[in-house]
């Protein structure tokens, strides 16, 4: 709030123009400023992170020991379904859009996003979409319980929640598409003079590619769920064999969206890490061009590997071989990225500030997720791994210490820039160690459970799986509680603290236009375009 008053005062002094934000609620509801909208996206995402996290803790509490102690199996299924939807569409994606809103204009030397009113609209759809989604918890029949993948015919067994789920997904999709269009238009049109595409910071590059993926696949998801809707209410039989349809066709369409979606959630994290590692290694990023081409290759490959999510549906041999080989190929550009990050650190001068700690943790743990991904690509082995906890372990390794640690690294890297204050370094370091240790206690044993034969999405299990489930649940509560520390650190930094300089990381070597502006940056970022050599 101190912020608002200061800015308002500033506006009074120069009443002939509009260099400050509106007062009170108008600032947020009518927001067109990229920083305000970015802040709203990030706060919204943090709230959803705790909502989705609470659901995860319900799941892990029930799985703490064999037998059903806490919830009905139907509610358990609702929790797994809602946890995924909230975390994917409510936590990870909006967090990255928030980071894009804050950082893209700052990094390309622009005053704001290209389409500020659409920016406002794309954010304000989100609270409505999630009110609709979360309200299904209170309707007859309960929240959606057919899995976030919404496979028919099971999804059609949902009660009143079914149409609400479909419309919520439509709203989220519309919001994402608008956000993505805004990013593309901004990057293509508003770069400072001299900033050619191959001079853009990697965070901007990774978001440009992500935005194209979003524009390409969100409409596909919208189409798939609309077909579910017409199957249910208007007598079509897209996914029903009795009418000449095929339930597996839904899976093909869904995963044509779903696999690029996976990269939508990780590419911006690649971008963040590519900014942070050179800064704290005090050495330029190794192989900038290769990094750009690798990101683009991953994005291209993401369109031709979707069926590896469904090897057990009974595809022709040729299909299985094609999707196996294409999937394995993704390891090549991903490997290039990991090697380049490592080579950036090699012969550098490394220090361990909180953003670097999270980036390093990302580097190690995302790579573990990459290894299990490679194992999952091998079709015969996948017949064993498929739909077990091995898969759960795999995608949580790439999403939690992957995507979410990427987001946290970004917050610790840029928070002093955003607020003008340094955060409590000691607390942030504690947050890092607690998160890194507990995330492994939480997810590493799930590899063992999956290999030993525990299927995913079950509310209760045979006693042979009891030990590792207990360990995993302890890790879950440790990880979940540690995140309260994160919320506290962010809140504390927003309220005040030691003033941050323009460069913020004075002893390191941060590169990019954002460090040429004051901390916090002026309301209209770059009013005069900077010159890029």
């Amino acid at each position: 709030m101190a912020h608002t008053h200061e800015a308002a005062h500033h506006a009074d002094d120069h009443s002939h123009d509009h260099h400050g934000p509106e007062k009170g609620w108008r600032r947020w509801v009518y927001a067109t400023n990229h920083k305000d909208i970015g802040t709203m996206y990030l706060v919204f995402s943090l709230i959803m992170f705790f909502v989705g996290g609470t659901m995860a803790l319900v799941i892990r509490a029930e799985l703490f020991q064999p037998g059903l102690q806490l919830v009905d199996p139907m509610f358990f299924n609702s929790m797994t379904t809602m946890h995924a939807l909230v975390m994917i569409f409510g936590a990870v994606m909006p967090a990255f859009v928030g980071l894009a809103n804050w950082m893209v204009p700052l990094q390309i030397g622009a005053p704001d996003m290209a389409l500020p009113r659409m920016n406002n609209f794309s954010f304000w759809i989100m609270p409505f979409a999630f009110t609709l989604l979360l309200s299904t918890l209170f309707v007859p029949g309960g929240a959606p319980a057919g899995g976030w993948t919404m496979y028919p015919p099971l999804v059609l067994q949902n009660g009143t929640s079914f149409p609400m789920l479909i419309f919520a997904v439509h709203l989220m999709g519309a919001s994402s598409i608008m956000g993505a269009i805004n990013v593309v238009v901004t990057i293509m049109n508003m770069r400072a003079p001299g900033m050619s595409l191959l001079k853009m910071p990697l965070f901007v590059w990774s978001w440009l590619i992500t935005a194209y993926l979003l524009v390409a696949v969100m409409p596909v998801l919208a189409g798939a769920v609309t077909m579910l809707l017409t199957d249910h209410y208007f007598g079509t039989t897209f996914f029903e064999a009795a009418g000449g349809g095929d339930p597996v066709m839904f899976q093909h369409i869904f995963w044509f969206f779903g696999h690029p979606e996976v990269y939508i959630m990780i590419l911006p994290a690649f971008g963040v890490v590519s900014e942070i590692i050179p800064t704290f290694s005090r050495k330029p990023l190794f192989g900038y061009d290769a990094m750009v081409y690798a990101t683009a290759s991953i994005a291209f490959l993401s369109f031709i590997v979707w069926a590896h999510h469904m090897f057990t549906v009974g595809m022709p041999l040729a299909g299985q071989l094609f999707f196996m080989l294409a999937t394995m190929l993704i390891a090549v550009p991903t490997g290039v990225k990991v090697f380049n990050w490592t080579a950036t650190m090699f012969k550098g001068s490394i220090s361990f500030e909180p953003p670097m700690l999270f980036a390093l943790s990302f580097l190690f743990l995302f790579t573990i997720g990459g290894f299990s991904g490679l194992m999952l690509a091998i079709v015969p082995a996948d017949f064993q791994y498929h739909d077990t906890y091995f898969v759960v372990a795999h995608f949580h390794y790439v999403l939690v210490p992957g995507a979410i640690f990427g987001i946290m690294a970004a917050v610790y890297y840029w928070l002093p820039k955003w607020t003008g204050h340094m955060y409590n370094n000691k607390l942030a370091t504690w947050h890092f160690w607690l998160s890194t240790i507990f995330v492994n206690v939480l997810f590493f044993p799930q590899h063992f459970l999956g290999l030993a034969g525990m299927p995913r999405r079950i509310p209760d299990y045979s006693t042979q799986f009891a030990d590792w489930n207990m360990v995993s649940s302890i890790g879950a509560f440790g990880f979940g509680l540690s995140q309260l520390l994160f919320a506290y650190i962010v809140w504390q930094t927003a309220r005040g603290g030691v003033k941050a300089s323009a460069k913020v990381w004075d002893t390191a070597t941060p590169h990019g236009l954002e460090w040429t502006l004051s901390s916090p940056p002026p309301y209209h970022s770059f009013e005069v375009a900077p010159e890029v050599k």
Partner: protein
Amino acid sequence: MSKILKYAAASVAASVMACLPVGAALAAWDLNMPVGVTELSRDIHGLHMLIFWICVIIAFAVFGMMIYSIVKFRHSQGAVPAKFDHSTRAEIVWTIIPVAILVGMAIPAAETLIRIEDTRNSELTIKVTGYQWKWQYEYLDQKVSFFSTLARDSDAARQLDSGIDPQTVEHYLLNVDKPLVVPEDTKVRVLLTSADVIHAWWVPAFGMKKDAIPGFVNELWFNAEEPGIYRGQCAELCGRDHGFMPVVVDVRPKAEYEAWLKAQQGGESAPAQAAVEKINDGAATEVVAKAE
């Protein structure tokens, strides 16, 4: 940094210690995929271990390099950063080597996959139909058909707040009233379909998992070499009781299997048997027509 490492080591030790006493009192801490009882499952296990070790070797190289850099090139130790920002040779090398490793993995994987998909020359065909939440097994040529559901004691114990300790129930959630019985050393072809939503039939010891999809027929095969009881579960989310429809296969020596089959064919009352036959006649021609 060293202080941080000390904290880290202490926390890891603490969390490991916290779990140990509990573990000692309970069952085994399984870490790896068990080796199965069919040739295919052993091949799959072999592939799994091959890829695993390749990943371990790569991990040693990559993580080793990362840790070396983190330890050796520390700002606090006065490391002076180098200025290089690319090396075309290194980049070509670490693009080509992974491609070669991948080809090396893909060849045995493709070879195994081709054998998995070869369902020809089977000696016994069983149609498996998934229901919410049980399995139906139909021996198409032998005219035997029955349902297989979760065992009573497991079902009682798994109710919310049942008060029954699952540790006291034998094969908790992995036992059925009537298992699928098959002969050893026989190529069994399983035809999979579903009566409602998608299920997946999975027996880890056979290395095989496949979806049962309403309106379509999938097939898989196995040839169990050792008599025994093998347990698995439905592997595709199929609604409320997805976790409570186990798959149990009882592999018997051929003579015992024949005796069991005789009992099934003759043991039931005549009208029931006639009904089974009628269902089977219709279903068999339909399924075979689709599978062809």
